[in-house]
């Protein structure tokens, strides 16, 4: 912990976008370890559609920053095979929505081979993917789907919300001996053509550092209502908390940072204090993250719970037109309303 505080001090020296922070971690690991390589569509010459590999080709060349055919089954499965052979591949799905094309390799191979082999095989790979909407790209290019990966056993699931976390979690992901699904929100990356909110660009230490999986981050301390969220909605929840402060409602904002493993202790401790739980999520409402968080609190701390609210995408595909997309993706007002409602109870 002391090490992390020290790192945070160095961080004040410069600030990076989330994409630069991710790339810095990948470059560092590639310099340190020849077994690390990156495969994906448009990751080399283009630098990643969402800047996830921007500049890496220049340093590492096409052998290690590999553009692949549009063949998700083949190259994700190839990453599984290379990982089992002892390498540390990173495979990128351009949009998480494309997971369906190669899903068998993801959930029947990557996620299960360790277990099915009785632990004799490990799959030390990272699967990165862009997630999220808010820019009207419609039903096949706007989902988050992290609840789907977290539901299926055998994958660690990482969802950074800031540059600082993105770098530390990426170092950890590449060094981890298990498959890690690393989901970055397009709106947070700091891409020129998709302006990010202010929050994700943070101080980032130049040196490498890790953020342990399963450690949620209390972004804002508060006494009245616990808001549990992740990804883009960390920033929307913080905005909501600021406006609620004017109404004397003191919200505590928790960024989960990883879904698998899930830091239920931090959530339960907060709810023990506030008694009120609001879970905010850009994934679909039913059978997903919001239900899981509520259930995990209820199992061990039912007596603490005075109010529960869920804010998520209703169970519809993401619509294209602006008024309808705005309707289904939770915004700051939706979060504030839910917190007010929980606070009244």
């Amino acid at each position, binding site marked *: 912990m002391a090490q992390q505080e020290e790192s945070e001090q160095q961080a004040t020296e410069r600030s990076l976008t989330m994409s630069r922070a991710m790339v810095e971690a990948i470059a560092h690991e590639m310099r340190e370890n020849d077994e690390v390589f990156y495969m994906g*569509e*448009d990751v*080399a*010459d*283009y630098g990643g*559609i969402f800047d996830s590999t921007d500049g890496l080709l220049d340093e590492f060349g096409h052998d290690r920053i590999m*553009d*692949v*055919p*549009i*063949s998700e*089954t*083949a190259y994700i499965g190839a990453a599984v095979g290379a990982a089992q052979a002892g390498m540390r591949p990173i495979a990128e799905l351009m949009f998480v*929505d*494309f997971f*369906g*094309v190669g899903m068998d390799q993801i959930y029947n191979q990557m996620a299960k081979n360790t277990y099915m082999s009785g632990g004799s095989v490990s799959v030390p790979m990272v699967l990165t993917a862009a997630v999220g909407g*808010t*820019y*009207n*790209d*419609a*039903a*096949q*290019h706007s989902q988050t789907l992290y609840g789907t990966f977290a539901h299926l056993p055998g994958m660690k699931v990482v969802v950074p919300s800031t540059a600082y976390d993105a770098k530390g979690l990426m170092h950890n992901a590449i060094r981890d001996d298990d498959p890690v699904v690393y989901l970055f929100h397009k709106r947070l990356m700091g891409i*020129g*053509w*998709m*302006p990010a909110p202010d929050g994700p660009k943070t101080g980032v230490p130049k040196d490498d550092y890790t953020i342990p999986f399963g450690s949620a981050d209390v972004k804002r301390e508060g006494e009245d209502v616990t808001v549990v969220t992740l990804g883009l909605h960390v920033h929307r929840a913080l905005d909501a908390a600021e406006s609620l402060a004017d109404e004397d409602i003191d919200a505590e904002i928790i960024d989960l940072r990883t879904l698998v493993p899930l830091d239920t202790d931090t959530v339960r401790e907060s709810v023990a204090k506030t008694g009120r739980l609001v879970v905010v999520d850009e994934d679909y409402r039913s059978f997903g993250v919001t239900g899981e968080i509520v259930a995990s609190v209820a199992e061990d701390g039912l007596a603490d719970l005075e109010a529960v609210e869920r804010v998520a995408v*209703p*169970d*519809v*595909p993401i*619509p*294209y*037109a*602006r*008024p*309808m*997309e*705005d*309707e*289904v993706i939770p915004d700051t007002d939706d979060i504030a309303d839910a917190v007010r409602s929980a606070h009244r109870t």
Partner: protein
Amino acid sequence: MVGVSELHEMYEEMVTARHYEERLQEEYLDGKQPAFDISAGPIPGELHLAAGHEASGAGVCQHLRDDDTVTAPHRPHHIAIAKGVDLKRMTAEIFGRETGLSKGKGGHMHLFDPDVNFACSGIIAEGCPPAIGAGLAAKKRNTDSVAVAFLGEGAIDQGAFLESLNMAAVHDLPVVFVVEDNDWAISMPKERVTDVENGAQRAGGFDLPGARVDVDDAVSIYDAAKEAVGRARDGNGPTLLEVQVHRRMGHFMGDPESYRPDEDKAAAEQRDSIERLAEDLRAHGVEDTTIQESRERAHERVEEAIEWAKDQPEPDPADAHDDVFSNPPSGVTESDPSAEVTGGDD
């Protein structure tokens, strides 16, 4: 041999498609100046324009009827126009309006017009399996309808395409696969992703006929498609066609194309299938004034569609909750057997 009236029809469709893309580009960029923000302006989200692909849509769809099915990829407008999709409602969809083909739910990558059996999808090669399904339905029902799946050359490495070729071949399905080769899969030139120079060679591995049209020319594509569609309609099974087209714009609007050599883009702009077809028309004795009238009609049609679309209301936010199911669970009521028994007595 293609007749002059068909040449003329194709020409007008191609001019319509080109002008449509150029006008959508203008509308799209409106509101995204000076800083390009993908979520701003009258058309938000990704926009994949097909300027330079027109000969493919026109040359192939010239042989199709309304009851024939077409599936298109993420770059669909020229194909939709050639297939006879309602241009006004398609445009309203692209502008996200209530009267759009999908009431604003789909957007430009997800256009559906059941009246002419047209659909498209934003996931690479994923239109192939539904196309063979349409072919299967036609075969089972003993109709002479056919299905055409359009895809880009980057899609020929996808399982969905390869599996569809095999299934179409083994069941002799009335399907034509049309690979539009524009040389680029976003930033990837094809020689870096496949050792096969000619995508039609993929046909050989599945024992079905394959042909490639090397020139970006509507008449050549028309001729090749005539044979392929005729084969499907006559019950003689599937064909794989690859046709050379050109990508005159970025993969999507906002694509910096920094990976693309300037000379490649300049060459794409020079090989204009529309000009080539105008020359064919002149060679058939069509007057310049007639050609010009065609152009004007096409432009007018596009302007009318855009004007109409922009005038349409935006959807109600609450509409987002409808249409998940054709038969919504909340609307399900248990049938009452006693009602059926007594029903006929009234």
